[in-house]
């Protein structure tokens, strides 16, 4: 691992530790803890990347604000992200999350779904703290930003599930980018950056550049995530080839549907018409081999690199006029990290 990558991961861990500590405070309640707090804290106590709170706290610092004032917002992001993960794992019937069994494997589907709901309520409580900390006006603005983000995320998730349910195979890379803008980027990068900037005192009319930077960064992140699902090593922590088994319309699958021979395309279509439980490991492996053979993974990596280049340009647009600081350097270094990370 390079020194820069180690430094970024160490910084992510520090931001994550602070945000998770704050998030766990919101789990305190009147119940005895066993039925809700214990499963709700499960994922929070597993080491994740903590990218979302890190982006929020770093953006706040880079724009000259006090990151402590962004802490409830960072905690809300981590809680909401955790809720999405719990529900995603149920929807995808995934086995592993951060190297350990998923919540529904550990506690059952009913507890997992209720825990996800609970985490959303905790996130709203964290956001509500902004009223006393930041004032009514800014708290209202942040609540609006969260609501817009939540809409995008659930619409994106619905789109992905709909594509799978309807067996869509006529998708293009543009459709994929549209999906990940909604499903991933808004809550992973765009909102955290905008929220951090607002808390630091940036005016709303200064936020457009952060949408561009956030999307390019988030798209590079998601494409790398999809590639790692095919080629990830022992640090990856999720089920390798799980995306193929679930029939996810990744950039690699979209490319393969175009590049495959007519015979291979027919086999792929038959594979995608099966329910996830009917897709056997040899079938999944065959699709992965086709992706290797037809250059679908290399295509996705180059496509992602092009977007990462745009992110570097957009970073200058968003942060160019801001004085140098460790937070600004951290955000700048996230761009190459997103394309090269191995977990």
């Amino acid at each position: 691992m390079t020194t820069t990558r180690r430094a970024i991961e160490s910084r992510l861990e520090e931001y994550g530790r602070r945000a998770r500590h704050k998030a766990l405070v919101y789990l305190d309640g009147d119940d005895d803890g066993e039925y809700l707090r214990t499963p709700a804290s499960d994922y929070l106590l597993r080491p994740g990347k903590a990218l979302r709170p890190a982006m929020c706290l770093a953006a706040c610092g880079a724009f000259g604000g006090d990151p402590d004032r962004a802490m409830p917002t960072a905690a809300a992001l981590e809680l909401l992200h955790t809720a999405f993960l719990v529900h995603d794992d149920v929807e995808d019937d995934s086995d592993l999350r951060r190297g350990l069994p998923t919540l529904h494997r550990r506690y059952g589907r009913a507890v997992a779904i209720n825990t996800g709901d609970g985490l959303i309520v905790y996130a709203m409580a964290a956001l509500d703290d902004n009223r006393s900390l930041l004032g009514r006006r800014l708290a209202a603005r942040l609540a609006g930003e969260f609501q817009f983000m939540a809409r995008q995320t659930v619409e994106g998730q619905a789109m992905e599930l709909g594509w799978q349910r309807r067996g869509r195979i006529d998708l293009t890379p543009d459709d994929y980018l549209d999906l990940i803008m909604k499903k991933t980027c808004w809550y992973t990068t765009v909102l955290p950056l905008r929220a951090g900037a607002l808390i630091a005192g940036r005016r709303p009319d200064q936020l457009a550049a952060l949408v561009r930077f956030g999307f390019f960064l988030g798209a590079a992140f998601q494409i790398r995530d999809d590639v790692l699902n095919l080629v990830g090593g022992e640090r990856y922590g999720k089920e390798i080839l799980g995306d193929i088994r679930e029939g996810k319309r990744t950039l690699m699958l979209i490319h393969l549907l175009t590049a495959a021979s007519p015979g291979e395309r027919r086999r792929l279509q038959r594979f995608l018409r099966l329910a996830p439980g009917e897709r056997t490991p040899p079938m999944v492996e065959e699709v992965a081999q086709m992706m290797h053979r037809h250059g679908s993974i290399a295509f996705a990596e180059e496509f992602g690199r092009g977007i990462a280049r745009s992110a570097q340009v957009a970073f200058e647009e968003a942060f160019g006029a801001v004085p140098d600081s460790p937070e600004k350097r951290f955000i700048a270094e996230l761009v190459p990290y997103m394309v090269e990370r191995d977990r």
Partner: protein
Amino acid sequence: MTPADDLARDVQMYGALSAASVVARYAAKVDTAMASVTDDAWDPTVIASMAVFARETIGPLFEPRSRPERVVLPAVIAGETSAGSLWLHDPGPLPGGRLELSVSPLVSGRGDVIPSSALSVSPRVVESMAAGGRQEVRLAAAVPFGQAAGWYHGWVFLITAPDEPVAVALRVEEAGR
């Protein structure tokens, strides 16, 4: 540069252009949504209401999704010409008094290219448009003989509005199908 470098560069450019198109739409969308967030219109206690949260987040799932501006030309086989229209709607005062158009090469997922020289837009220059009016622009692609089958993608650029390209897609089918 080797052919592999060329291909990698083209795919990177494809990614960058596609992403630029998506983000332009969403930047406008969030500005519109946030314009309604004012002190008077928003009380933060709303976030404590599960009912409001559910209505606002789940409701849009049942609304039709708007499609991006995109032109899909009729599928053809190599050696044939495909043509279609895109419509420019009154963009307000034209920058420099006119609107110029150009079209990028069309690139497939495998890196095959239909060059700009095989593509045409007509008219290339729009000198004026009536307020509230619209202008048809014809787009034609003469697919060279021997062109590989597959989906090809590219852009029509409004030179005076470079951040609003229009995506173009064309499927070249295998001969004999």
